[in-house]
């Protein structure tokens, strides 16, 4: 028995004398704890994660800014009003309909007006809220469908795999934006059950749907590899049902892949939403989104560049911060990364 104790002692790095039945060993360090330790050292990723968090918080505060600071609703246009810029009074829309630029005054038209005399800053926050909301819902839809489809196809193989994979191939055959335009336009015109063109959910549904194969295929491939591992055999010969094996044995092993895909899909969904909206197949007016703002601002580009630039910068910043943070996350979760324990 002593020799067994030595083996245990060797592994934990604690000498045999200390190891005693009365000693409580610390709980094990799980894969996620290790990943968090690695992520914590990646300052750049954390900084960009913080930027993203800041954008989210700002967008969530949109109603407060609109009501208590700017005192203007996002859809209220005031084409005949005036605004003070650096002491001078200017028309919100001048004689030829060119909107005023940024006033840099938090309480009034901070980032200028758009071509209908609406406050760009307020619309930017509301639009951001919608864009993020659509992105998030779309990501949830993508991940849920992809995990189910990928796991079923990979684990059950055979005819199930054949059917699921061919359906995914069909979706994949169309470029994401093109398919989005088609689906978005169809839903806009005909509606799809409870989804009408006016709900943000329909755009989220379209965006979420077109990305399913991009996630489902890698998940299927990973499940195909996982199901050949011996611990799946061990679970099968214990008599666990396929459903239990898929949810309790395979799914935990997909977690890092899923976590890595979430920021990727989120960034793409936000971009795709903007693209669809810009092309008229996404969010419909009067709802604001970064896509509609760019689309609305395009007619006044030479004179009032800020109308396009401001939502564009927000879009880039958001997607960039998600991607950089996602990269850091992937590095931290990558099982092939060197595992360093104990050192900070």
């Amino acid at each position, binding site marked *: 028995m002593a020799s*067994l104790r030595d*083996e245990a002692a060797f592994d934990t790095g604690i000498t045999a004398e200390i190891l005693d039945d009365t000693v409580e060993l610390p709980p094990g360090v799980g894969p996620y704890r290790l990943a968090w330790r690695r992520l914590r050292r990646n300052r750049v990723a954390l900084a960009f994660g913080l930027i993203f968090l800041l954008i989210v918080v700002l967008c969530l505060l949109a109603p407060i800014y609109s009501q208590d600071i700017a005192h203007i609703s996002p859809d209220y246009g005031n084409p005949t009003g005036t605004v003070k810029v650096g002491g001078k009074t200017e028309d919100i829309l001048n004689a030829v309909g060119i909107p005023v630029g940024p006033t840099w005054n938090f309480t009034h038209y901070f980032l200028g007006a758009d071509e209908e005399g609406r406050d760009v800053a307020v619309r930017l926050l509301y639009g951001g809220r919608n864009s993020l909301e659509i992105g998030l819902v779309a990501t949830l839809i993508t991940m849920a469908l992809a995990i189910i489809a990928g796991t079923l196809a990979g684990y059950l193989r055979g005819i199930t795999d054949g059917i699921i994979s061919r359906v995914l191939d069909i979706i994949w055959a169309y470029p994401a934006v093109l398919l989005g335009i088609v689906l978005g336009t169809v839903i806009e015109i005909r509606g799809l059950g409870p989804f009408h063109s006016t709900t943000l959910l329909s755009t989220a549904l379209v965006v979420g749907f077109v990305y399913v194969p991009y996630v489902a295929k890698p998940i299927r491939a990973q499940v195909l590899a996982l199901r050949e591992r011996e*611990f799946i*055999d061990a679970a099968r*010969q214990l*008599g666990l*049902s396929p459903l239990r094996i898929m949810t309790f044995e395979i799914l935990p*092993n997909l977690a890092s892949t899923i976590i890595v895909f979430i920021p990727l899909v989120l960034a793409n969904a936000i971009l795709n939403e903007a693209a669809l909206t810009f092309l008229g197949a996404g969010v419909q007016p009067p709802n604001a989104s970064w896509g509609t703002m760019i689309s609305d601002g395009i007619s006044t580009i030479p004179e009032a560049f800020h109308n396009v630039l401001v939502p564009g910068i927000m879009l880039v910043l958001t997607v960039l911060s998600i991607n950089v943070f996602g990269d850091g996350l992937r590095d931290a979760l990558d099982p092939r990364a060197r595992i360093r324990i104990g050192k900070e």
Partner: protein
Amino acid sequence: MSGEDAALRVPASAAETNGTALLEVEHLRVLFPIKQGLLIDRTIGHVHAVDDVSFVLHEGETLGIVGESGCGKTTLIRALVRLTHATAGAIRFRGADITAASQKQLRPVRREMQMVFQDPQASLNPRKRISQILGSPLRLRGVPRAQTEGRARDLLTRVGMYGEHLNRFPHEFSGGQRQRIGIARALAVDPKLILLDEPVSALDVSIQAQVINLLEELQGEFQLSYIFVAHDLSVVRHVSDRIIVMYLGKLMEVSPARELYEKPIHPYTTALLASIPIPDPKENRKRDRPLVGGEPPNPVNPPSGCRFHPRCPRATAICREVEPPLTEYAGGHLAACHHPQNVSAEEIAASRRSAASPLAAGEETPAADPA
């Protein structure tokens, strides 16, 4: 059929006569189809992984299975626990045919028959804590949730680890410790038969001894039967009561453990024994070793007649044409060879064709061989 059953259960030694059959395997075949084709798969051949294998395992017995890599050892025991589908033949556990049983019907059998896997790292889910790994078989067995942790703790202590290890993940253990966890998981459902698929081949020699000793202790404590698959003959000799020698999916020799090493009848067994290294190089060089050259033939197109004939130093014309039946010699020693070694003319005369012989095998048992 019943007459044949009785013939299969050949009393070999005093110990076995008392034991009742726990697991009976009759003419088991596992063929893997080789498929080819662009849209519609055509089967262009089969890999003969296990080809007409029959044997009986008695209660409390340890049956060793040895053979080269690729001879079908692992496929055989995977088929026994129904992880691989058997193409033909029958597997009976406590007399009940489980060859085609549904997953639901198998549930009570799975509680009594457990498997320990070759690679202790791959056989534990890397994302689960040890408490979860041991918890799911315990709950399957009907242990209430409140008691699972205590029972899991007991199991860990029983295999020589600490209860505190429950909260750890598999990657935090050494190979030997992981294999102990694998054994604890098999024990969790309180089985009667454990199939060990090369349980120590991935471990250091010093750890191998610990794990084997543990297995022997557990056997005495829980009245376990083992099927112990290995390619290391010295390990198998240590643990087994009886040993099966397999080659290319067929049984070559079935013998009480000690007798196999002292009196191998089949030339293939002799060659296997000769390949055991002796620690002293001088002794090793002195040995006259009838080494078998070459590689095992392709199991897609196995040789005609005796599977071993292309590599056998004693092969003659009959070996190429007629598959030898499993012939039963004194003491329950079976061998499938037309030219048996180490048996006297009287023993050959007293031998008879065993009912465990492959269906395609010839009727003629060997005649007394001048060689």
